[in-house]
């Protein structure tokens, strides 16, 4: 049986973050991952990649995660794609270990454990 891999789109200005998450997700063998470090290119790349889920950093110099989420909401092809926000602004104690739903998006405080992220992804996709 051929299982279709889920497509995960990763956006963070820090390449070390995106590559670390990417290699963990890829190591599961269940995900196709695209990671980009310039949020200004995010919408364009996402349209072509057609992700099942987007993981977004909140604070980025060029364009913050909120702005990227808004742009996705404005695009019919991306509007329904779930987003998981990773943020260093709020403390770990402020969010649940498995992420906190704020509005329609899930927030994780950095640093987070990969297993928690993976569980959340599995839940969403």
């Amino acid at each position, binding site marked *: 049986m051929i299982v279709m891999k889920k497509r995960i789109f990763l956006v963070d200005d820090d390449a070390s973050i995106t590559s*670390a998450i990417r290699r963990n997700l890829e190591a599961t063998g269940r995900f196709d991952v695209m990671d980009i470090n310039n949020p200004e290119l995010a919408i364009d790349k996402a349209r072509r990649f057609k992700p099942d889920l987007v993981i977004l950093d909140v604070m980025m110099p060029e364009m913050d995660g909120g702005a990227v989420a808004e742009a996705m909401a404005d695009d019919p092809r991306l509007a329904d794609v779930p987003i998981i926000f990773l943020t260093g602004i709020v403390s770990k104690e402020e969010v649940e270990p498995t992420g906190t739903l704020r509005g329609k998006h899930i927030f994780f405080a950095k640093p987070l454990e990969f297993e928690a992220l993976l569980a959340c992804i599995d839940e969403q996709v």
Partner: protein
Amino acid sequence: MTLQGQQIPFPKGRRYAGNAILLVITAAVVLYFCLLLVLYYQSSEELRENSLEQFRYETEKRVASIGFFFAEQKDDLMNLVSSREINVFFENRALGMSMEYGLNLSLPPIAYRFQELIRKKRFVSDAMYERLVLIDKNGSILVDTKPENVFKKNWKLYLAPQYRNEPTILLIDNELVVSVAYFFKGQYEAQLVAWVKREVITKRLIGETLSEKDRIWLALKDTHPPKVIIPQQDTLPAYQQPFNANKDVLPESGKPILFTATTKDVISRDWIHISIPVTGTAFEIIREVQRKLVLGRISPAWQLMAMISVALLIIGSAFFNILLNIKTQNLRRNLEESMRREVEVYRTLAENSLTGVFVIQGGLVVYITEQAALAYGYNVDELIGMKPGRIISPEDRANTRWMAIDMIKGNSKVPYEYSVITKNNNVRWILETVSPIIYNGRPAILGNCIDITERRKREILNLHSQKLESVGQLAAGIAHEINTPIQFIGDNITFMKGAFQDIISLSAILDAVKKDDLLSHEVAKDILARIQEKEDEIDLDFLKKEVPQAIDQSLDGLKRVARIVQAMREFSHPGGENKTDIDINKAIESTITLTKNEWKYSAELTTALAPDLPIVQGYPADFNQVILNIIINAAQALQEKGGKGGPEKERIEISTRQDGKEVEICIRDTGPGIPAEAQSRIFDPFFTTKEVGKGTGQGLSIAQNIIVKKHGGKIFFETKPGEGTAFYIRLPMVTETTGQRL
């Protein structure tokens, strides 16, 4: 202790005694002067009288001379009529001798005598007589020296009875003649008449001394106006028109009178007039002389008035001088009194002020208030005569000296701070100003000092709390900066853990192979197939590619964390109370690291740090705080401006350089600039333009305090609304070997 050098002697009473003496002397001088004036006036009046008398006397002499002249002429004619020749004629005529019969012959001798008289009688070189005529009582002319001249009028006039009594000098036909009657045996027989030459009389009368201002006339007596005989056709000034009030007053003979006349030159002049009759004649001599020639130009009355005016002026001046003197003395006394009070006030101020006062002269303390001594932790007596540098903390001596010199030279007006070691070996902080003065007549240095130890402690606490505030402000950012590497290090370790388990599973197959010593070909093939299968399962190629990257990234992440922790440690360097060497560039880089999260979302920060920047002495933690405050301000200003990344990113540029004897740090941003109305207040404590919660308004105030007061440096800014702001910090350099300020 008193400011003895400024004490002023109180005025003494002798100045008032001086005024009284001046008054007495002035009065004596004035009295003496008045006496002199009266004497002078009297003598002037006497002199005038004498001059007038002299004038009258001199005129009388002239009159006498003329009288004598006329008398001489009378004598001449008397001698002539008594002559034998005339007697012979009349004797012969009495004997009955007729003219036809010899009487004629008696006449030539008479004519001869006449001619002889005319020839002999001279005045200087001129003949006195012009003509001599002997007229018979019947009117016939017996002898005439100028028979050719016909009488203009009836010559019988000369025979008038009034001329027979005595020799007479009279004016007939405007001619001056001397007339003498001749009697023979008691009977009137003839009249002898002599014409006198006018020139001779004129010469005799006027002489050589007279002038236009001193004139003399011969006139007929009892005529008004006087009929002038000599000089002819002349008029006296006194009788010229218009005339003064004296014109109708007949001058009393022989007494000089004063009058005013307007002469032909139309200049009014005062004259003196005198008329004296010539005895034995019908004439008088009149003399008129300009008054100034006799009495002088100014009358004694005028002179007296002038001198009284001068005297009054002198008296007035003296009194004015005395009044002025009294006023000046009062003023001076008041001034001295107020100065004395002022000195008292200043002394009280100095002794009781919270600010200590001291004076240094010749390098030694010569005056110091108790307050100042207290600040230094000594007694007044212990400090007098001491070198002030001895109590300054050794590390502050050189810098304090330079700051004091700067202030004395007028280059700086900012009070400076330094620490001293008290008698009990405690450290105290002093805020001081110095200025050059003259003390006891010699150059000295006046110092004002305040003990700011408590303030300094508060400042340290303040600084510490601001530092804590900054740390709090930075905490979230620093946490983010640390969380990011922790995040990916954690992810990588998670990945490597999985990878390692995969490697272990592969390794288990290899372990099984090791246990079987005799591997058949089939078994080997099977093992290889399992290995291949396992490699595919664990995606060994993927692991070979990703694991080294994960390790490298993790190591890099650890370095990032270590760098931040190091920067935090450097930033929070507690330092000490003493200055130490600051590596300005390193301090700036640490602060940039710590603040990265503050500016990285709104600006691009670049540096241009001079690699060979000299070492500066100071307080590193305080200096870092200054750089931090300015960077935070710049970052917040750029956020306000809406700074975002991208090609049009706002910028913060930090540069360092050596400029002369100073190190300059410039922090420039491309923010909105400082509004004009805020520019003069940005260094004020608690002044802020930031929104609530973003700042307490202490950042730049503390920065100024640290740079100016603690480091003896300067902090200033340039700003252009809409274009940005540049803050400059300049710190004095030190030489590495001596620690002396350059």
